[in-house]
Structure formats: C-alpha cells, structure tokens
C-alpha cells in the first residue's frame, strides 16, 4: 500500500508535467490544426535555461531556495514564451496559407534546429540540476516518506492549470482564443484579431512548456538535450488521450498518462514503459479518436 501511494505521487508529479506540456500542443492544435513538433524542444530549452539562470544568478544561499526557484521559473516562462512567439513568426506564419503538410515539415525542421542548438550551446552530455536548487526535504505523510519537491511540483502544475482554465473561460482574451479555435473566419468577423490570438497562444503554450522543463529538472535532477522528443511525444499522447484541442482534456490526459506510465512501470514491466504509453495512444485512437473529453467529432473521415 505504501509503495502504491508513493507511485501515485510519482505518477501525479510526472502527470502534471505531461499536462503542462500537453496544454501547449492542444492549444496550438486547437487554433492552427498544427502539431507543433518543436514544442518538446522548447520544453528542453526551458529545462536548460532554468539551470543556467539559477547558476549564473548566484542566488543560492542568499535567498530561500523556494524564492530563487520561483524567480527562475518565472524568468524561464518569459524567455521560452518569447522563443515560441519568434518560432511562430519565423517558421509557421509564412506557411499559414500553404498546406498543412508543409507546416508539419517546417515544424520538424524547427525541432531539429532547436535540438541541435541546445546540443551546441550546452554540449551533448547529461546535466544535473544543482543540489541547492532542489532541497531534499522528505515529508512524512501517512507514515511514509515523500520528497517534498514532488508535492510542490504537483501543487504548482495544478495551480498553473487552474490559472489557465480561469483565463480561458473567464476573460475576454480567453474567450477570443476559444472563438478562434472553433472557427477562425467567424472569429475574424466578430472583430477578433486572429493573428494576435495565434501569437498569444504561442506565448502561453511554450511558456507553460518551459516551466514544465524546469519541473523535470527539479523532479529527476537530470536533463539531456534530446529529452524533448520523448517527453513531447508523451505529452502529445496525453493531449490526444484527453481530446486534442480540449484544454481540460489535456490536463486530465496528462495526469492519466503519468499514472498509467508510473503504475505500469512499477507493477508490470520497466523495459516496456515507453511502449505502454504508445500502446495507449494507438488504442485510444482506434477506440475513441476524439479522446476522453473531446466532443467535436473528426470533421472528415
């Protein structure tokens, strides 16, 4: 039972990270119908920027660890959001009127570009997050030890998701985003500047992805230049699991996938852990292509 609860916490922590990355995929897909293959690499960049910023700011010891980490996370969010916006401007906007396949290839090109840029800047070796950044406090809950950082990660990701949920559902801009996702032409007729909405989506999505990158560094300690691919693909699986284009769906899908993967690795098989999530992906697409919460049926079969 103890082990199960521990795995549950692990699953929710990684699930929250998947969910944050999945939000970037699902929002972009909702508005542009484009799979942003470079999103996973923006997430990687977030992880590396977090480490570099923390080290170069030299905050360790001067301010409490949580304050330093929060500051770094906010800065990473801003920087990666900017990068996402640049990416949309340079690689996707010129292809808006062209076919979707050319945008997909452009996204793949961007992914290759970012991945190799990270490798050139930071090197091909693994990096370890500094110990001062991830305090190893153990919380004793229900008679078992749980790393405090995991609880913080879960709380932070839920908080970010709630904030986004509020923004999308309760503000004018959020409404505009939803409108643009449903019908761009009609949104334009209602006076919504769709280009700016798309730019906004490319600020929010990568921003959240960048924070998720920092969270991975905090949870596992280890980051590598090519981790964006597997995290990205799993986050995308999560987005589909919940229903692509659906924001609560991405949150639910992320959490579910994190749990499935962690529990599967713990109780079934470690070597097939990655295959498990892809199997879930294929099964969900065969059985229910719209995902769990997706209500809009595929427009053309």
């Amino acid at each position, binding site marked *: 039972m103890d082990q199960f609860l521990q795995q549950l916490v692990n699953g929710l922590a990684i699930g929250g990270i998947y969910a944050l990355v999945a939000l970037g995929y699902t929002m972009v*897909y909702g508005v542009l*119908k484009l*799979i942003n293959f470079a999103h996973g690499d923006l997430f990687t960049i977030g992880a590396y920027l977090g480490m570099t910023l923390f080290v170069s700011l030299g905050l360790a010891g001067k301010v409490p660890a949580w304050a330093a980490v929060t500051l770094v996370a906010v800065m990473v969010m801003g920087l990666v959001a900017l990068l996402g916006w640049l990416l949309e401007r*340079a*690689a996707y906007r*010129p*292809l808006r*009127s*062209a*076919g*979707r*396949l*050319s*945008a*997909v*290839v*452009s996204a*793949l*090109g*961007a*992914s*290759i*570009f*970012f*991945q*190799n*840029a990270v*490798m*050139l800047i930071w090197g091909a070796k693994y990096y370890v997050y500094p110990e001062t950044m991830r305090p190893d406090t153990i919380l004793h809950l229900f008679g078992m030890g749980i790393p405090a950082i995991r609880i913080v990660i879960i709380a932070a990701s839920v908080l970010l998701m709630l904030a986004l949920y509020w923004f999308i559902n309760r503000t004018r801009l959020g409404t505009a985003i939803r409108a643009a996702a449903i019908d761009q032409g009609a949104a334009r007729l209602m006076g919504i500047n769709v280009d700016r909405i798309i730019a906004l989506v490319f600020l929010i999505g990568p921003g959240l992805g960048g924070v998720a990158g920092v969270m991975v560094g905090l949870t596992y300690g280890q980051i590598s230049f090519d981790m964006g*691919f597997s995290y990205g*693909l799993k986050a*995308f*699986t999560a987005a*589909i699991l919940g229903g692509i284009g659906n924001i609560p769906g991405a949150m639910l899908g992320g959490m579910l996938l994190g749990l499935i993967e962690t529990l599967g690795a713990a109780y079934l098989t470690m*070597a*097939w852990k*990655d*295959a498990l999530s*892809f*199997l879930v*992906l*294929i099964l969900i*697409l*065969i059985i229910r*292509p719209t995902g769990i919460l997706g209500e809009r049926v*595929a*427009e*053309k*079969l």
Partner: protein
Amino acid sequence: MSAPDVLNKARNGGTDAGRRFRLPPALRVPAVLLAVAVMAVLPRIMNLYWIDVFVSIGLGVMLSLSLNVILGQTGIFNMGHAAFYAVGAYVTAILNTRFGVPVLWLLPAAGAAAALFALVVARPIIHLRGDYLLVVTIGIVEIVRITLTNDPGGLTGGANGIFGIARPEIFGMKIRKGIDFYYLIWGGVGVTVLLFWWLHNSRFGRALSCIREDDIAAEGCGIDVAHYKLMAFVLGAFWAGMTGTLFAAKMTIISPSSFTFWDSVLLFAAVILGGGSLTGVILGAFLVFGLPEIFRDFAQARMLVFGLALMIMMIIRPQGILPPAPRRYDVSGFFASRRSGAAETWPAGGSALNGPDDGTDAKPAGGRGAS
C-alpha cells in the same frame, strides 16, 4: 469551384507553380537517359567515401519512393515508415544468420513480412483522419524500435542488433566492394522508378490521385477508398521491406538505432520537399540525405543548418520542388466520335478517357471509331 479550378488544384495551392521547372515532353527521354548515364559513370570518378554516400542516398531514394506511394500519391500521413524498413531488414538478418538463406533470395520474404505487418497494423487505423494517422504511425515506429531493443525471444539481439549478415551474391559473383553495392542499389532504384512510374499511370495510380485530391469525391466515383488506401499502404511497406534487405546486406550489421522516429522524419521530409512526383521525390531524397554530407564542413552544426534549411525550403516552396503534373485527358476524340454519329461505339473505341496524357497535348486522339 469550376472544373478547371479543380483540375489545377494541388494540395498546396496550385500545381502549375511547378510548371516552369518541367521539361518539354520531347526532352524527357533524353533527360532520363542522360541521368542514367551520369549515375552509371559517377562511381568511376568518385572516391570511396562519396561512393558510400551515394549508396546511402540510393537507399534513401528507394525508401522515399516507397513512402511516396503512401504519402505523396495517396495522401496518407505516414510518419512511421522506418518501421516497415526495420521489419524487412530484421527478417533478412534473422533468416540469413540463423538459416543461412542467401540474402538476395530474401528480398520477397522481407517485402512480404513488411507488407503483412503493414496490413495488420494499418487495417484498424486506415480510416483515421490525417493528423491522427500521423501520430499513430509515430507510435508504431516507436513501438517497433522498443520491441527490437527489448529483444523478444532472443531474436533481435537487443540494442546491439544482429551482425554477421552475409554479403549478397549474384550469379556466383560476391558483392562486397562499395562500387558493386553502388550498382546493385542504384539498379534497384531504377527498377523502383520504372515500377512506380507504371503504377502512377495505371488505374490503381489514378484511383490514388483521386483519393488524395478528395476522398469523399473518390468514394462518390465508386472508388473503394479504404481498400485502395490499405493497398497503397501495404505496397509502400512491401517496397520498404525489400529496401531493408538491401540495407542489411550492405551494412552486415543492423541495430534498432537505424530505424528511429527521426529516420521516418527524414523520409517524410524527402517526400514533402519533393512534392510528390517521382522526379521531385528523387530530388527531395538527394537533398535530405545528401545535404548533411555537404554540410559536413559545419561539423557539429550540420544538423542545425539542416533543420534551418528544411524550414527555409518549405517557406520558399511550400508545395515542394516538383509537385505531380495535373493529369490531362484529351477528350477531343470523344467529341469527334460523337459528332460523326459513332457515339454508340465510344466505350470501345474512345480510349481517350482511360489513359492519362501526361501533359502531351499533341497526342493523337483516341476516337478511332470516327474514321
């Protein structure tokens, strides 16, 4: 949308944009002969390194052409083509190293295994819409790679792969030198091009084009869309499996790292970059598999430059280098036969509607019933 609009419509906005790159019909045969001659002479003047590069490019061209049947001609978003390539290569390696079956005899077996695998995995997903299919095929290629790495039943040799695959033999002549492989693989490319050119102009190929342009309209025209899509998928996989045999024979060692998602991405990029026509896809494969070699001067940064080049090329030419020419049909013969009162004979005599004209407007009309 009016009829000429439909005819000129390409997936990516206007096939006619590719026209200025297109050769006049009279020059096509000489151009093909020239290309063949150049490819035949090249290895005599290249050093061993470049021969090796060209062998890899040749394999890339064959794979891209096989993917083109699925992606370029039918419009099925398949981003897991390396999975079928892997099945072919592993079937070859296992049968050769365990049972000593000569490598080239395994070509049909490898193709059949890949085709069967494609049939099984594609059957339940073929009806999915574009992007969903793209993601499922990524899932398939990853599952195949993980399976190969996990070494089920000790068959695939895990992460190290399988080594000691025998060299191929043709009529008692062992192929081991780079230049021999060059001729073997580019000979394979030649066969591939001929076959797929014939296929493109067949009833089957026309059905695929029709599905790509509009699958609902195709269904309305009586084309069994699901069946044709599946057949295109299986055919492309078959050819990729056979290419896998050549790859295994060339390398003598194969491992899961040769069949990753990124290898599928390169093939996908080659087809989209090429635009979907045979010539275009060959050029696309040359760019995708040759550019990183040319960028070797950038050393570490070559893939960075490659990613950048991919983006720039798509922005400059979103429809690809050479999209397929719109099929043109000379219907004047049909109307001529109508005018001369031979209308009742047109299904037999008026073959104009059955064959594509390949852009040659001067082709004699098919209405022989009129004379």
